[in-house]
């Protein structure tokens, strides 16, 4: 590069390819205040003149000092022979300097640098960007920026204490992909002014960045060979997040919005530069696209023949373009309105980078194009078409198949919000407050609400994959069982409405396929597509399953894997994969006999396999307590529901929005760890639980219960916004766990809490009795001496006659099975044979 300081002046490619009046208005205002150079001296009449449509695009009074003007404007020669690649994303069709070089009046929308009277400071017309300073600043940023706290996965493997972007440049030289992604928040923290310029004048600043980075790169890696020059792709502009907040002010600025791709178009070849050849003298000329139009030269400049130029298609330059429709994500929408959509244009290598259904963050330039005037009409629509020229895509859900993705869930909290949340957290009764704010229309059931609250917060995620155990489940699963009409469904509905990634399904209507994932053939592309079901969709959320008992066995069996391993394995139609399903399950089940039978165990009442039940951390019974005081409070609660005004209710309870934010904040920012005392307390609790049973010769706790306790304690610490799990947390976890057990694992025959009801499906006493019956049967058969076979029915009658306790047919069959397992006898049809 021969004269870096002067080069940019003439070569500024910012020709406002899709110039829109608003931007000019803005710029006009911007540059009229502050110590900016005087506007180019074009009178107003000139602006309004038809000359606007001329191809005359730029010119500079300092043309004479621009020998290296080709640097940016020639498509073929770049820094040390590396070709420059056009950037249609910036709308920067470079203008061929074919106009009269000595025009004194700079035309309105050309990229013109003017000189400030005071000194040598040049700025791009309409902005306050000085190319030289800007470049210098950016180079300094690249060379010096260090972010020791970075946890972006792009930076994995980089030394965080070395300048970040220099390492990335090195990477480019190795890999050869000439794209440098720059996080705008880095730029902002490094140089706020540069950031402001980048956001306000992306069209001018980004090419400057490009130059800066290429100079730096080829200085450092002079021997590198790249396909084209490095392009800078900024992302994560902090300014705009939400599609709904886009307004006319944002036109021509750089914005970042999030949304979901709903449609992508075919690839559109867009002409960038037309190649014309004279039919008479074969003189050729190139014409650049200006606002989507090519001005066909009417006269050949060489032979002065009129209308002799013909377009040569295969010598014209085209670029790839794709239209993408993006819809705002459901979380950003106010209730009762429909989602907005925005048109996005992707260019060159960004084409086909995203698929419908992807959730993405888009960084790009917001454009508004006026409706084209039709010469045959006297009026024109006064509407602008808006779109975004994309500079950078960032998929927010692509990492769902592997690590946890922090970005997509990260809600931005304002300072004040964080402050109020922290204040709330500091209150001693925050736990009670939050639990009572949960579904206030549902009466009492405090422990259940507390359990659900802890479920909403979840435990701390732990990764033991290095030691071979894989991920440790952090999600708390809860099962509610109880009489119909005890507002279980309502509780589920509430939770489903509260969490951002909640799914609500009913066991009756869902199949295994609907819950997990299924493979579909795309009708258009004939491609197999994996469609995810409720469990995968609620990854990192809560899956509410109503009527759990009505679910078919095959459907339920998929839950086994989800509820412990937190993954879903799929092997279908040639697609074999494992999806993450780190979802908490909140299920509700009705008893088989429509009314809860207190004489039976939980398992007998709801008829669910114990293997599944043991995967629930907490199992609650929602029963009608049938006691007068309760009735009175219930009645009061219900009547109040019907006559209290909206305000009164709000005074009493926390707002749902606050609760939502509180949970979101805690889930993202708080990761409590066990402290020494808490671990001791947990160990003691576990040992105590084991001891209870050992006296009666049974196991009363399994490691799974210990894990549950840990999770609950962690969740409770999160409720307090505490980074340490302390003894109080363990105490509450113990209490809640005990309460739940008391309800669900009490052996109705003995009145003891017996964990084996849940873990093996049978209480210890029941198992003992089974054993006894089998022994009695064996004894009876042995007492008869050597008979090879006997009648089934007769044996049953005999046993009943002999035994003191009543023996049901089930018990008898179980005893037979037990003996068959011992290889003592076999049962064939109606006869029993001894072996």
């Amino acid at each position, binding site marked *: 590069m021969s004269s870096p300081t002067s080069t940019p002046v003439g070569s500024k490619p910012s020709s406002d390819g899709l110039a829109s009046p608003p931007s000019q208005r803005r710029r006009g205002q911007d540059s009229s205040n502050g110590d900016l150079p005087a506007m180019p001296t074009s009178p107003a009449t000139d602006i309004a003149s038809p000359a606007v449509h001329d191809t005359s695009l730029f010119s500079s009074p300092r043309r004479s000092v621009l020998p290296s003007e080709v640097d940016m404007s020639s498509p073929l020669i770049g820094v040390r022979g590396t070709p420059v690649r056009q950037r249609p994303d910036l709308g920067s069709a470079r203008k061929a300097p074919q106009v009269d070089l000595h025009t004194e009046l700079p035309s309105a929308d050309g990229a013109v640098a003017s000189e400030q009277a005071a000194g040598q400071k040049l700025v791009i017309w309409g902005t306050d960007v000085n190319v030289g300073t800007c470049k210098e600043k950016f180079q300094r940023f690249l060379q010096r920026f260090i972010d020791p706290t970075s946890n972006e996965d792009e930076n994995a493997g980089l030394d965080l204490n070395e300048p970040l972007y220099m390492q990335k440049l090195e990477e480019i030289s190795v890999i050869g992909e000439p794209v440098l992604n720059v996080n705008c928040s880095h730029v902002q923290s490094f140089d706020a002014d540069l950031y402001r310029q980048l956001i306000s004048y992306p069209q001018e600043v980004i090419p400057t960045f490009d130059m800066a980075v290429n100079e730096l790169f080829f200085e450092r890696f002079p021997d590198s060979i790249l396909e084209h020059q490095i392009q800078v792709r900024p992302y994560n502009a902090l300014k705009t997040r939400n599609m709904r907040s886009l307004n006319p002010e944002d036109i021509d600025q750089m914005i970042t919005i999030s949304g979901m791709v709903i449609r992508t178009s075919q690839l559109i070849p867009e002409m960038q530069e037309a190649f014309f050849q004279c039919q008479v003298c074969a003189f050729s000329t190139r014409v650049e696209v200006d606002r989507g139009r090519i001005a066909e030269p009417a006269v050949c400049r060489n032979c002065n023949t009129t209308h002799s130029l013909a377009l040569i298609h295969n010598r014209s330059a085209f670029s790839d373009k794709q239209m993408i429709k993006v819809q705002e994500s459901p979380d950003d929408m106010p209730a009762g309105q429909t989602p907005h959509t925005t048109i996005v244009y992707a260019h060159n290598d960004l084409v086909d980078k995203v698929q419908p259904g992807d959730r993405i963050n888009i960084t790009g330039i917001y454009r508004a194009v006026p409706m084209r005037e039709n010469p045959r009409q006297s009026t024109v629509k006064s509407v602008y078409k808006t779109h975004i020229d994309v500079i950078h895509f960032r998929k927010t859900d692509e990492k769902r198949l592997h690590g946890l993705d922090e970005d997509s869930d990260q809600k931005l909290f304002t300072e004040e919000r964080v402050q109020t949340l922290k204040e709330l957290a500091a209150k001693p009764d925050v736990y009670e407050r939050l639990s009572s704010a949960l579904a206030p229309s549902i009466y009492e059931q405090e422990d259940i609400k507390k359990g659900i609250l802890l479920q909403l917060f979840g435990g701390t995620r732990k990764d033991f994959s290095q030691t071979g155990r894989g991920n440790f489940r952090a999600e708390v699963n809860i099962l509610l069982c109880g009489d119909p009409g005890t507002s279980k469904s309502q509780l589920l509905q509430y939770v489903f409405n509260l969490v951002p990634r909640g799914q609500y399904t009913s066991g009756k209507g869902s199949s295994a396929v609907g819950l997990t994932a299924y493979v579909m053939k795309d009708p258009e592309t004939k491609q197999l597509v994996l469609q995810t079901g409720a469990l995968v969709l609620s990854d990192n959320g809560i899956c509410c399953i109503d009527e759990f008992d009505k679910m078919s066995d095959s459907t339920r069996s998929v839950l086994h894997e989800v509820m412990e391993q937190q993954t879903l394995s799929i092997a279908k139609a040639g697609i074999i994969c494992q999806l993450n399903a780190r979802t908490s399950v909140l299920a509700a089940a009705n008893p088989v006999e429509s009314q809860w039978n207190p004489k039976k165990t939980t398992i007998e009442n709801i008829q669910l396999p114990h293997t599944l039940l043991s995967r629930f951390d907490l199992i609650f019974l929602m029963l009608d307590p049938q006691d007068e005081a309760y009735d009175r409070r219930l009645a*009061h609660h219900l009547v109040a529901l019907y006559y209290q005004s909206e305000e009164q209710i709000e005074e009493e309870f926390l707002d749902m929005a606050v609760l939502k934010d509180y949970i979101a904040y805690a889930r993202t920012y708080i990761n409590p760890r066990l402290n020494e005392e808490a671990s001791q307390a947990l160990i003691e609790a576990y040992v105590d639980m084991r001891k209870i049973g050992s006296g009666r010769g049974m196991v009363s706790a399994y490691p799974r219960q210990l894990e549950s306790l840990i999770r609950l304690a962690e969740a409770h610490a999160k409720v307090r916004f505490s980074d340490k799990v302390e003894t109080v947390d363990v105490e509450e976890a113990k209490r809640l766990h005990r309460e739940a057990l008391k309800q669900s694992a009490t052996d109705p025959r003995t009145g003891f809490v017996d964990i084996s009801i849940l873990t093996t499906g049978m209480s210890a006493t029941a198992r003992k009795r089974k054993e006894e019956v089998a022994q009695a049967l064996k004894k009876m058969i042995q007492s008869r001496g050597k008979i090879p076979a006997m009648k089934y029915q007769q044996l049953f009658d005999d046993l009943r006659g002999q035994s003191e306790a009543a023996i049901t047919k089930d018990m008898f069959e179980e005893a037979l099975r037990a003996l068959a397992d011992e290889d003592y006898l076999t049962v064939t049809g109606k006869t029993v044979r001894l072996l």
Partner: protein
Amino acid sequence: MPSSHDWINKPLGVVEAMFAQSNSNPEWEAKVLEYFKGQLKEKESHSWVPSLNDVPLHYLKPNSLVKFRCLVQDMFDPEFYMGVYETVDPSTKANVLRCGKYKDVTECGVDLNSRNTVTAERQTFYCVPIPGESPWAKEISFLSAARVVPSTSYVPSRQKRSYEEDDDDMDTQPQKQREPHTETPQIQPHGNGDSKRQETEAPSSQTTTPSDCSSHLDLNFPLPGERGPACLVKVYEGLDSFKLNDTLEIYGILSVNPVLTVLGEENMETPEEQRAHDPPASLVPRLHMLYARPLQHNNPLLPSAPTEDQSAFVSSFLVEMASVRAELLAYLTHVLLGDGLAAEYLLLHLISDVYTRRDVLPLGKFTLNLSGCPLNSYTERLYQIVQQLVPCSYRLSMSLHTMNSMRLVPKKDYVANRLVSGALQLARNTSLFLDETQLEQGQLDSSGVRNITALGNLISWQKVDYDFSYHQMEFPCNINVLVTSEGRSLLPSDCQVPLQPQVTPPNMEEYLTTIHMAQFTSQINKFRVYLSLARTLDYSISDEVTKAVEDDFVDMRKDDPQSVTAEDLHRMLVVARLLSLSLGQTTLSRDGWMRAKHIDMLRRSRTEQQKSLNGNEP
């Protein structure tokens, strides 16, 4: 003559004058709104404004002020337009600033690079007439509005006529001065020239005359067989205050400029999208909103606008309330074949309303299941009678075929980028009459199951989950659902009443027709006012009665805890509320509570009886 008002005939002139005075002071926008609001506040003045609902589009002057009673069916993306632009005056050659607000088009020669250009934002709502509006409501509002005589300045150059209105069943229209169908041959093919493309889903395609072109353009009405103009309403202020499915009375400037229909200029959009978003202005006019009044109800018999009027009206009617109620009850008893209890419940159902929501729980909904309905055409007749009483209603015949084929839940069509409506996209307080007697044995396919689930959700939670393909979105609603069935309905309901006919007329048709004919219109009108009014009354429970109710509940549970559950208390509280309101009482009295308890007991004993009779009743 009221139509001499400039603000009705040339509202744009008023806007432009204010803009010219303002000298680019942005306050002028507020002033304009203030002015029109003020004009409309004046007594009767709002009835001078012609209504798109009543007057065929081609009788309305372009760029005049019109009103439109409608439901917001879809909300399109916001658009940027030239709020202020600069253009050259051809006579003086001077630059002039022009205002682009409330207009679709600008004059040519706009200087796109002027620094004075102001870009502003507006949003387009797709509005349709209130779905299921009863014929009587249309008729009365049509008659009561001071009929704007079709203007003599009718511009013959506007040949595109509104096909919708012309085919409309206008027998109700007293003036027969509509031009005969002579102009039919002049109809130009509508804009985009794709008349070959048959829209398969057009529900309103009842080809009554050969000139009916409705099958070419799906106007996206929620209910099949609906007619009326759809409208693209451009909204400038208070965008956040509007919600989907709001019912509004919009006052705005009518724009039917044919430029709007010129298509194919940009290929950014698919043809489907273009048709959905830029339909020919002759079919779907544009309306630039100046003022919108949210409608609490669309009963034309009730004063709706000024609040003072209303309260006076209410207090005068309150006196009559009890007697009207008795008459209505007698009428309904006859209709329900002499079953007084069922009539009582039907009355309560008709005035029910979701008055608030506690987190997910809608309060005040009262879905009634009338079981044991006689077969044949009884339910259809019953619906006709209900339709005569309420301003908005729809009968969904739940036959296997309709359940499998009908679209109940609105779905986003991403190709056309619009929300394709479904039968459950209804205005608040619409009476949805589900006729389960039409259901026969057979298999529901997956869409049938989805439809039944949607109905169940609607009844239990008063919400509809709109299908956005990639996700669902929940829209709360407020719809009175009445289910008629033979046995107990397969849908959930708040309250089931088995019908016990006291009379068995040999000819049902004749019987019901006679009952209906016996009522004078004035009588029916009273019923109509009564039903709409009772719903709007405030209601409260005093502490004393609260206490009594609590005691009562505890007592009831003491005897037999199984007999009364929390659910029952919920229902009885709703019944007590509705019962009090139906009598015009705005607080719950001890008496009212006892009555509610009493009728609930009667009803329950009846269901018990039914159970023991049938045995297998779940």
